């Protein structure tokens, strides 16, 4: 009984020491979580974009249907397009003239009608498609529909509102993280104060402490002795050797690997805009991708299929497109910088992979349709090639070339598919010769 109480008393007297130890470990903990939170701060990402609302036009019977089917590709109601804006057309021309014009504008122009000739000249002598099958009532229905559509209100630039909308969620997270950081810093400061207060208190009562606790209170870290100790030197030397070996090993592995290579191109062409937003298929420009070894960089005439008329873009305005049209006018090719440079020592054929195997472009090139500047997504190492040849079953659907191979394979291996490896796809001479 007496012994127990003695121990309790002793423990009570050591309380400040214990607290000092505890507060030290809490300090470490707080500092650690502070670092973690700061790191997560840096890793914070953007939230998703807001969806654009779709407009629903009012129904207006047959006139609207005919307009959409036949006219809207060249005419807008309130703006000039390929042809003039159609609103107010009733005031500009009488009904008989309009009927004749829509049915066959070439005849009206040939008749020497002043208004027709002037209109033809104004719109670059582009002949309007003739609609000889239209009845006068149908043409009137279209015009009535056109006149019934009210002028839309002028668009307010929606960029800034969009911006704040998308940042909303992110800002909220930032505020919370900021608060956590502030609280952690306060705790850190409080702990330091607490520690120094306890130390000062113990210094006053130093005479009452036993030897062990005194040592703990007055302990000082001897840096010199620590640095000179055999263990420390050994660990530092080993770390140095280890890091050096690793750096050399990694560096040697990375020789010739150009993953994430994103050269600056002579024209700031955006794949995100063309292949992503406008959904132009890769094959439209890279015409060889399904036919030959190379997938082709498009020649300027393919760019000009659209850019003869589209002179202004959403990213860079007119500047970059002008480089293109100037080069086309001068007849000089653009010197695009090749991104994927497979060394000549390895054979690769696009058509075998795209047309025969049916692999999507993105499998090797990554999400090209999301890239403003194209970068090399895959590392194009031999291990990368071989890994896919080991794992992927050959696409033998509707391809008689593989019939016998599959049959022989099914007999010997007892399974219905085969990988490229199993039909000799890893032979050195398949790619290196």
């Amino acid at each position, binding site marked *: 009984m007496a012994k127990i109480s003695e121990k309790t008393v002793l423990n009570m007297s050591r309380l400040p020491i214990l607290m000092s130890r505890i507060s030290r470990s809490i300090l470490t903990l707080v500092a650690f979580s502070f670092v973690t939170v700061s790191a997560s701060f840096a890793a914070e990402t953007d939230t998703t974009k807001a969806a654009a609302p779709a407009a629903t036009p009012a129904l207006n019977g047959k006139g609207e249907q005919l307009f959409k089917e036949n006219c809207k590709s060249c005419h807008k109601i309130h703006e000039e*397009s390929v042809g003039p804006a159609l609103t107010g057309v009733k005031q500009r021309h009488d009904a008989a003239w309009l009927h004749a014009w829509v049915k066959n504008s070439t005849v009206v122009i040939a008749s020497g009608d002043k208004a027709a000739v002037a209109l033809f000249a104004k719109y670059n002598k582009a002949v309007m498609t003739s609609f000889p099958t239209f009845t006068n009532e149908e043409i009137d229905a279209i015009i009535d529909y056109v006149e019934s559509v009210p002028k839309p209100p002028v668009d307010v630039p929606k960029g800034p509102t969009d911006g704040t909308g998308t940042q909303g969620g992110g800002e909220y997270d930032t505020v919370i993280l900021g608060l956590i950081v502030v609280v952690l810093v306060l705790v850190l400061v409080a702990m330091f104060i607490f520690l120094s207060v306890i130390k000062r208190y113990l210094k006053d009562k130093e005479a009452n402490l036993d030897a062990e606790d005194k040592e703990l209170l007055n302990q000082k870290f001897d840096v010199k002795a620590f640095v000179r100790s055999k263990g420390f030197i050994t660990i530092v030397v080993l770390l140095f050797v280890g890091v050096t070996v690793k750096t050399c090993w990694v560096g040697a592995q990375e020789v010739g690997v150009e993953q994430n290579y994103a050269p*600056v191109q002579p024209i700031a062409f955006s794949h995100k805009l063309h292949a992503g937003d406008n*959904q132009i298929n890769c094959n439209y420009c890279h015409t060889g991708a399904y036919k030959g070894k190379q997938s082709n960089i498009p020649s300027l005439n393919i760019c000009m299929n659209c850019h003869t008329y589209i002179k202004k873009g959403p990213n860079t305005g007119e500047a970059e497109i002008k480089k293109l049209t100037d080069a086309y006018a001068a007849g000089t090719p653009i010197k695009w910088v090749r991104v994927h440079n497979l060394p000549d020592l390895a054979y690769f054929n696009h058509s075998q992979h795209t047309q025969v195997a049916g692999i999507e472009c993105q499998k090797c090139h990554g999400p090209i349709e999301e890239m403003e500047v194209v970068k090399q997504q895959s590392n194009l190492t031999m291990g990368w090639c071989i890994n896919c040849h080991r794992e992927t079953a050959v696409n033998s659907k509707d391809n008689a070339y593989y019939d016998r191979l599959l049959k022989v394979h099914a007999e010997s291996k007892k399974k219905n598919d085969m990988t490229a490896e199993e039909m000799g796809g890893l032979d050195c001479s398949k790619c290196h010769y």
Partner: protein
Amino acid sequence: MTMKTFNIAAAIVFAATVSSCNHNFDQIPVHETPRVEYAPNMYVSEAYEPVTLVEDSVNFPEAYNVMPYNNGSNLRLPVAGTIKRGAIPYHISKDSLAYANATLVAPIQPTEQVLAEGQVLFERFCSHCHGKGGEGDGPVNDKLQGVANLKSGTLKAVNAGHIFHVITYGKGRMLQHSSQLEPLERWKISLYVKEVLQKK
């Protein structure tokens, strides 16, 4: 420290640093200029490779393929007056659209396979302007304007030859697509538009 603990410590530290040698190339930073290459003379082809420009005449004198007077590029037009192997000449001129419509007959039948291939080609080469359904509502139409609705009465009335001629030479705001599509591919698209799209 005894020799034994020393050895153990050495092994642990060394293993810890070197163990992550299974390297992940994703960590290579995004870079604008090429990195180190080993034996680059094995990288470039001495024989001419398309879309491969070798501008370094000092290190690769045999592979150097910059053409003078051509903006330092090696892209060239075909020699004037030549046609490529297997090319079928097309004799009808651009302004004879009505003649093409009246006289041209597709050299292939609209079999199931031809129409399936036509659909693939249509979706790769046409749908961004003309729309997947051919109604002139593809995403590019918002910018280009003047894209024809392939299901309009006027175009339902024409023959496949009209469509072939327009793909070959262009019409209105559409420019020629003969450099991107072989004649047979143009016929497949024309037949797909006539036989499948316009009948939907």
